[in-house]
């Protein structure tokens, strides 16, 4: 045998032995998202990164991490403290306090149908691209979990269960921040809300009351609510365009929102449109949680608009404060909005610890 042939043989053996070991270690079982009928029929497919496919083990690990205070510096706060399942994965305070009791300055966003956020710009101001990157931030934010990633990684490596769970999910015991956020993102993508009364109405499984139907008409009427341009319609089960708008909250801005991220003054005062699903659970409302009730929100659009340089052109009759809905239309609109409540979502055992 010539020397070069020997080298080739060694390289082949090494390659095959490596591959075999990797295959043996990585046993995660694929678990594609179960896409609801209305989503399947009406909107584009969810965003699943090629390098982070959904697996049974990855989702289970993500769920455990989501509810585990081990991610915080003092082992006292988990993701679920500000994103509670029973509140559609938000909390019920204007701002949320971190491990030191200090409060942030944005309202905690509810978490559902995140895999259908096609632009992948997360947070109120879109500062994190991708769900995986979004999960990095709260862990080290001094107003939230106030931890460091080396500390998190060290704690997880020493833990009784996690090394094995990471091995099953990702084929490695070498736990790092990337794998932690990948697992959390996998769990978050499973948080699908699609079982509201209005969903059932669209599927022909129930009827709406005349009041709820009129409320839907107010929502879809450009001369009254005109909510559909930003919040979608019966053809878009997300109930948000996931885009950024200035909806006339302030004349001047203490929080620049998207403008902070882009540096473009024309983006000042713009925040991501939240979904209208599950409003029954997600008070208070707006990026700064300024409105305690849905009535306050509706009143804002009806007569509370404030003009500013970047107010969205879709905010009509700003000089009059808004479109001036009648009292009955306001009541009906609220009734319709509440048909987007998904009680099955908050009770889903797969989403609870």
């Amino acid at each position, binding site marked *: 045998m010539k020397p070069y042939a020997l080298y080739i043989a060694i390289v082949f053996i090494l390659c095959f032995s490596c591959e075999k070991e990797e295959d043996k270690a990585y046993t995660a079982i694929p678990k594609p998202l179960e896409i609801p009928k209305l989503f399947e029929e*009406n909107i*584009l497919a969810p965003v699943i990164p090629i390098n982070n496919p959904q697996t049974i083990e990855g989702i289970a690990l993500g769920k455990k991490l989501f509810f585990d205070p081990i991610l915080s510096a003092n082992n006292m706060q988990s993701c679920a403290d500000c994103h509670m399942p029973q509140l559609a994965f938000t909390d019920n305070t204007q701002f949320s306090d971190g491990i030191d009791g200090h409060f942030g300055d944005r309202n905690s966003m509810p978490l559902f149908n995140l895999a259908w956020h096609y632009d992948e710009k997360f947070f109120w101001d879109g500062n994190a691209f991708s769900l995986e990157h979004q999960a990095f931030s709260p862990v080290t934010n001094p107003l939230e979990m106030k931890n460091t990633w080396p500390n998190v990684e060290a704690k997880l490596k020493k833990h009784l269960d996690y090394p094995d769970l990471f091995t099953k999910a990702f084929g490695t015991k070498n736990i790092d921040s990337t794998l932690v956020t990948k697992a959390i993102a996998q769990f978050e993508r499973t948080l699908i809300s699609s079982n509201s009364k209005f969903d059932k109405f669209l599927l022909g499984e129930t009827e709406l009351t005349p009041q709820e139907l009129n409320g839907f008409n107010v929502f879809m009427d450009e001369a009254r609510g005109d909510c559909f*341009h930003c919040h979608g319609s*019966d053809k878009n089960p997300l109930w948000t365009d996931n885009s950024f708008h200035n909806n006339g909250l302030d004349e001047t801005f203490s929080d620049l929102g998207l403008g902070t991220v882009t540096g473009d003054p*024309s983006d000042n005062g713009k925040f991501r449109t939240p979904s209208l699903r599950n409003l029954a659970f997600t008070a208070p409302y707006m990026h700064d949680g300024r409105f305690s009730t849905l009535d306050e929100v509706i009143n804002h659009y009806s007569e509370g608009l404030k003009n500013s340089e970047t107010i969205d*052109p879709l905010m*009509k009759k700003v*000089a009059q404060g808004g479109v001036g809905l009648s009292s009955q239309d306001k009541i009906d609109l609220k009734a319709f909005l509440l048909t987007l409540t998904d009680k099955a979502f908050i009770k889903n055992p797969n989403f609870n610890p």
Partner: protein
Amino acid sequence: MKKINYTLLIFVFTLCSCSENNDGNTSLESNITFNFSHTWDNTLINNTDFNSIKFTNENGEQLSITKLRYLISKIRFTSSKNEIIEVSSYNLIDVTNNATLSFSPNTKIPNGEYNNVSFIFGFDNEDNYTKNYPDLNSASWNVPDVLGGGYHYMQLEGKFLDTSTTETGYAYHAIRAVDNNGSSQQFQDTFFTVNLGSVTLSRDTLFNIEMNVSQWFKAPNTWNLNVLNSMLMPNFNAQVMMFENGQNVFQLKSVSN
């Protein structure tokens, strides 16, 4: 001898395959691409010109553009024998995000002479009402059922200085005109065909199409933004005026290979 024959055979095969793959002129069909650019009269504009009041319309109102999206569909090539080759796809052009300004349908077009190339601004009624488009639904492009359903043709939004020089929003949204005032809905078609003229197709071809945005406010109807600025979707007459003003909005700037 055998060895030489095989070598010769491989050489001939290689020569043939090179000829077929690399020489566009020998192909019987061509790819087409539609590029969309935008002007305010004679000035080229793009999304970097958005969000500041820098345009003046025919009525003398100063205005900005904050959003411009529009739909084109049903590209047609009509041969000298009046045979029509139709590209049954569509494209939502999003000028705001500088996206999808270039559209290359999957359908290849047979080479030859064509008397006319055209596309539809918006959707014709068949496309508008008989199909469901997940990509357009995801882009919140729908028209409410109370206005007939289907899809928007265009969303042009911005601010203008009203008579008291206050910045006021406008939403120039084009849809199929609908009159809801009677006992039943009355419709008038407001999609229109944009004819680009004749073309000889012999290789992959690029159609450079230009939209003059100012034309939407110009003729035959001088648009008064102080009167017509919002809630235009349910406004039958406004939709017809948009249709009329839209007739001269597009032009074929050039055809290149």
